[in-house]
Structures are given as structure tokens and as C-alpha cells.
């Protein structure tokens, strides 16, 4: 178990990368730190590794306070974004290096390296140097180096970001299965929301050094706690439209929608609905946003249609074959069961609550 309490990291120069952060990560959990660049996710990971010393707060691993423990004695293994393989060592020596540091006898560590390499289908390249490997192979060697010494915690810093798109999907599936089999607590950093949703048991969305929301991929996707999380999660950004409460009706971008309970007359709200949960109607409806079709983007099996309603843009995903013509009038109908209402900067309630 990893527990962080009141963790703060201020870099010399005054940049506050991590701000009063509390987080508990359970044993065996596959945990993602997700956020845009500069949100502090990598600093947080490096602080868990011990490569950064927190300005204040504590880091606990497996019940022990390791805040001041050097990285090598925390029993963690890290896979770096650029893999950080030792260019002058062959694959065997790279994988066996952590064991060598721990003074494991040569035959034992070489046997262990060979076994780990076999597991990651690297057996054919044990005598190669990192410079002679492809990106995907290097990534697997970096993983093997982390696995071979059986640490308590794996820390992955954007482990898939240097792979090309197709390989990344394969590596993702592979990584998830590997983590299941090894059942080692894993924290990984990513800026790719799709990767976080696909891999993690739980996700922490970060911004400006703070946690915006911690939850399972389903929770984060379906009930993002703030407009920031809502716009960050999802392959297409969520429609976030300003509106007003009048009586028990929400007036949003030309549509009149039933207001959820708990709102008072005159409140300003933000109405959120994903393009995937927005349908198009060719005829006028009261519960729809009117506008004209401005842009069409082909997504393969569907089209992303952008409707221009005055100054606001509303996006809807339309299945293939149902595309409207450019420039025609259209009404974007939110699926109200999937819509979210934000008051201030917090989630008021999904509708229905």
C-alpha cells in the first residue's frame, strides 16, 4: 500500500508541482496518474520513487514511512519514459543490473534475467545492446529490468508514449495482463486519458498539483467531478454549455431542459453532455440545441458533427449513414440520462440524480 499525506513539492524558484496532496493506493492496484503536462503527475511519481524529496508531507510504502529513504532502499522499480537502459550493457546485464547491485551471485542473476526475458519474449536478443533494439523491444527490456527484482511497487513514467500508435495498443493489453499476473502495486503516469481508462483500476486526475478526482474509470468517465475533468476525459471533449435556472427549467443554448432538484431560481450552471450522448434531429425540438452544421469529421465508424449555435459550438457523434449536409439547420438533442449539471465548479448531479 502506498499512502501519501499532505504531500507538497515546491521546486527552487517557487514552482509548486504538488500541493498538499493526500492519496491512498491499495495493494495490487493498477493506479493511473492522469493530467495535462505540467500538472505535477511526474513529480508525484518521482517523489514516490524517492528521486525527489518532498518539501513537506509524508510518503509511506507498505506501512513504513519512506519519506527520507533513498530510492534504492524503497523496494520500488521504475520504468522511465525513455527507458533509461544502460547503453553499454547487453540485454542480460541490463535486466540483471538491479540484482547485481543487490550482490546476487552471477549465475543466479543471469538465470533470473533469462527467465524474465523469456516471459517478455526477449530470449532471442539477450546479447544485444539497447542500440540494436527497436523501441518496443527496449520498452520490454525496461519492463523486464523492473520485474526481475520483484519489487513491492512498479512506477511507470509514460511507459507507452514512445511507441507508435499500433504498438501502443498491443503494449497496453500486454501491460495490463502482466500486471494482473504479477499482482504488484503499480502507479503509472500518463497524459493519455484513453490509456488511463483502459489500463487502470483507479485513476487520479490531476491539475495544478492537486487531485481533481480519484475514482474508477467508470466513475471518472460517467461522473466527472469538475468541468476540467469532464473536458479532459473522453476521446472527444464534452460539450460544456453555460445556462440559467428559471423555475424548474434549465435554459441552455436555446434549449429548455428539465432542471434537477436542488437548484434555485436564477442559478448559473454549466450543462455537460458528451458528443457520444448527443443525437441530431432534423426537425425543431424544445429539448434540443438549435444551430447549423459547420464541420464534419470522419471518425471511421461514425462522424463527429459540429453545430454552430451563435457563438457556441456543440458536437455530436452521428452514426455512419445519418450524416446531415453541411450548412443545414440541425437540432442537437442531449440524452438527459447521461447529461451532467455543474454549479460553480462542482458536479451538482447527473440527471436523474
Amino acid at each position: 500500500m502506498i499512502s501519501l499525506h499532505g504531500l507538497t513539492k515546491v521546486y527552487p524558484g517557487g514552482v509548486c508541482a504538488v500541493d498538499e496532496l493526500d492519496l491512498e493506493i491499495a495493494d495490487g492496484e493498477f493506479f493511473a496518474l492522469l493530467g495535462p503536462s505540467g500538472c505535477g503527475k511526474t513529480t508525484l511519481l518521482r517523489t514516490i520513487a524517492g528521486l525527489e524529496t518532498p518539501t513537506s508531507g509524508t510518503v509511506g510504502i507498505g506501512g513504513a514511512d519512506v519519506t527520507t529513504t533513498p530510492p534504492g532502499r524503497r523496494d520500488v522499480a521504475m520504468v522511465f519514459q525513455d527507458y533509461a537502459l544502460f547503453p553499454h550493457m547487453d540485454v542480460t546485464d541490463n535486466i540483471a543490473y538491479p540484482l547485481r547491485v543487490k550482490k546476487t551471485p552471477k549465475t543466479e542473476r543471469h538465470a533470473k534475467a533469462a527467465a524474465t526475458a523469456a516471459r517478455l519474449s526477449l530470449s532471442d536478443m539477450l546479447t544485444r545492446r539497447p542500440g540494436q533494439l527497436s523501441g518496443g523491444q527496449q520498452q520490454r527490456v525496461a519492463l523486464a529490468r523492473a520485474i526481475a527484482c520483484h519489487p513491492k511497487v512498479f512506477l511507470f513514467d509514460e511507459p507507452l508514449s514512445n511507441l507508435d500508435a499500433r504498438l501502443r495498443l498491443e503494449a497496453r493489453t500486454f501491460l495490463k495482463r502482466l500486471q494482473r499476473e504479477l499482482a504488484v502495486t503499480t502507479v503509472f503516469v500518463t497524459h493519455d486519458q484513453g490509456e488511463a481508462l483502459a489500463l487502470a483500476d483507479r485513476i487520479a486526475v490531476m491539475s495544478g498539483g492537486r487531485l481533481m478526482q480519484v475514482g474508477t474509470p467508470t466513475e471518472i468517465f460517467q461522473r466527472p467531478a469538475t468541468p476540467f475533468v469532464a473536458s479532459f476525459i473522453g476521446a472527444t471533449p464534452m460539450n460544456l454549455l453555460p445556462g440559467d435556472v428559471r423555475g424548474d427549467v434549465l435554459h441552455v443554448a436555446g434549449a429548455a431542459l428539465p432542471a434537477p432538484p436542488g437548484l434555485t431560481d436564477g442559478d448559473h450552471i454549466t450543462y455537460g453532455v458528451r458528443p457520444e450522448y448527443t443525437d441530431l434531429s432534423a426537425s425543431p425540438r424544445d429539448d434540443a440545441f438549435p444551430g447549423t452544421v459547420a464541420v464534419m469529421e470522419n471518425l471511421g465508424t461514425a462522424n463527429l458533427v459540429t453545430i454552430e449555435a451563435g457563438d457556441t459550438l456543440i458536437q455530436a457523434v452521428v452514426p455512419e449513414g445519418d450524416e446531415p449536409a453541411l450548412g443545414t439547420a440541425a437540432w442537437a438533442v442531449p440524452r438527459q440520462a447521461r447529461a451532467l449539471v455543474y454549479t460553480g465548479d462542482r458536479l451538482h448531479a447527473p440527471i436523474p440524480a
Partner: protein
Amino acid sequence: MSGAANRRRGPRERAGQSRLAALMLSPTLVVLALVVLYPLLSAVRESFYTSGETLDADGFVVEGERFAGLANYSGVLGERFVNALANTTLFTVATVSIEVVLGVLMALVMHRAFRGRGFLRASILIPWAVPTAVSGLMWRWIFQADGVANTIIGQQILWTTEGVQAKIAVIVADTWKTAPFVGLLVLAGLQIIAGEVYEAARVDGASAWQTFWRITLPLVRPALLVAVLFRMMDALRVFDLPYVLIGPRKHSVETLSALIWDEATRVHYGPASAYGTMLFLYIALIAFVFVKLLGADLLADVRTRRRVAS
């Protein structure tokens, strides 16, 4: 031009291409032949001739160059040449090994990030920037009988005369002067090592010592080898420092270059050329052995990489 068109080219076209390449390179080769090959060959030729006026067997004065066979090389077995060879080798081994240690230390210090790093880097390089003749005079002053060196160690040593102390003086001054050069090349090597590699070693639990021996040193090795090779060739032909610091024709610090210079100034061009040829062969042999022994796996690495790529 597309790759397919390139591949379809016949052998005749390729031969044409290499002829063109030879044509383009020929001006360089001509210049090199004029300024490198010709002087070298003429020095070797000179080493087999003797010149100046002399009397022949009948007592007549003969002038001009005459073929002398290996006569000029007879001095190679003489005490003076052997002594110069020993001095040169001693200076090379001593200065280069001390410089490697000091240079690596300097590079490690210069590589760290701290306030005033730019100032420190500049000041470490000053000895390398000072002309040898000037630093030689400066050290001569330091090593005077009533100089700084004697004051510090509280002894009365005549450094700049003859004997072991003169050798030590030369080694100290040369090390002071050229360790920064090694430091600079090693620093360049250190700077291309990715920071993540050190962090990976830290997470693996490697101590500072282990990191230095197993990570830093192997990765900086190519740069270090280049520095050592340059320094070795430099040290093997050293002339100016012993000359200025101790003086010419001093037995205990006379190097091969100094010996050649001395012979040449006394119009003994034949022996000077013979010794020059020997020095050239000596340096070439050491450079060859060095590259063979230490540079071997470096080249092997490049070769395997090429094999994989093709």
C-alpha cells in the same frame, strides 16, 4: 532520387560513381601528399644520407650529400638516444596517467550544477590556454632554489638542474598544463549521458561508487580514450616544456624531440632525420597498439550495429 532507381543501377554506373568520387577527392589527396607524404619520405631519405664537407680517403675535400646506409642509425643504440627514449616514455606514462585521474575528477566537478559553475569551468581551463613557453617560465620561477615550491615543502631542492627532481618538475608542470584538456574532453563525454540513466541506477539502489564504475566510466570511455590517445601522442613528442623549464641538453629531461632538435641545430641532419624516423615509428606503433587493444570493442560495437541495420 528514389530508392528503387538507386537499386536498379548497374555495376557500370557504380564504377562511374566511384571514379567521380576519386576525382572529387583528388585535390585533397594531392595537397596531403605535398604537405604530409613528401616531407615524411624526404626525412626518411635524409636519414640514409650524410651531408656537409668531409675528406675522402685520398684527402680531398668532398661536398654535398652522400649515401651513408644505416650509419646515421648507429646512434639509436647509443646511450644518449636510449636515455631520451626512456625520458620520453617516462614523461608520457607519468603525465598521461596522472592527467586521466585529475581530468576525470575535474570533469565530474565541472559537470555538477552549482552557482559559479561557468567561472569554475573557465578557471580550470586557464592552464591549457597559457602558452607552454610562458607556463614553462612560470614553473621555472616556482621551482627556483628560493622559489615557492621549496618554501611550501620547506626543503632546499635544486629542481631545475639535473636528476630525479628535474624529471618531477617537468611531470608536475606538464600535468598542470594539460589535465584541463583531458577534463574538457571527458566533460563533453559526460554531457551526452542521459540523466535518466543515473536515476535508473539510483532506483536500482546503486551506490555512488557503483554508479561511477559501472555506469559513468563505461559510458564516458569513448571520450576518455580519445583524450588519452591525443595526450599520448602529444606527450611522446614533447619538446618545449623541458626546454624552457630545465634547459637544452640536460641529460635527465632530454626527450627524443629535444635530441632531434639538438642534432639538427648542429647540422647533423642525417642523425636528426634518423632519430625523427625512429620517433615517428615509435608514436605510430603506440597509437596502433592503443587503438587495437582499447579501441577494439568500440569498433566491434559499431560493426555489429551496422550488421543489424543492414
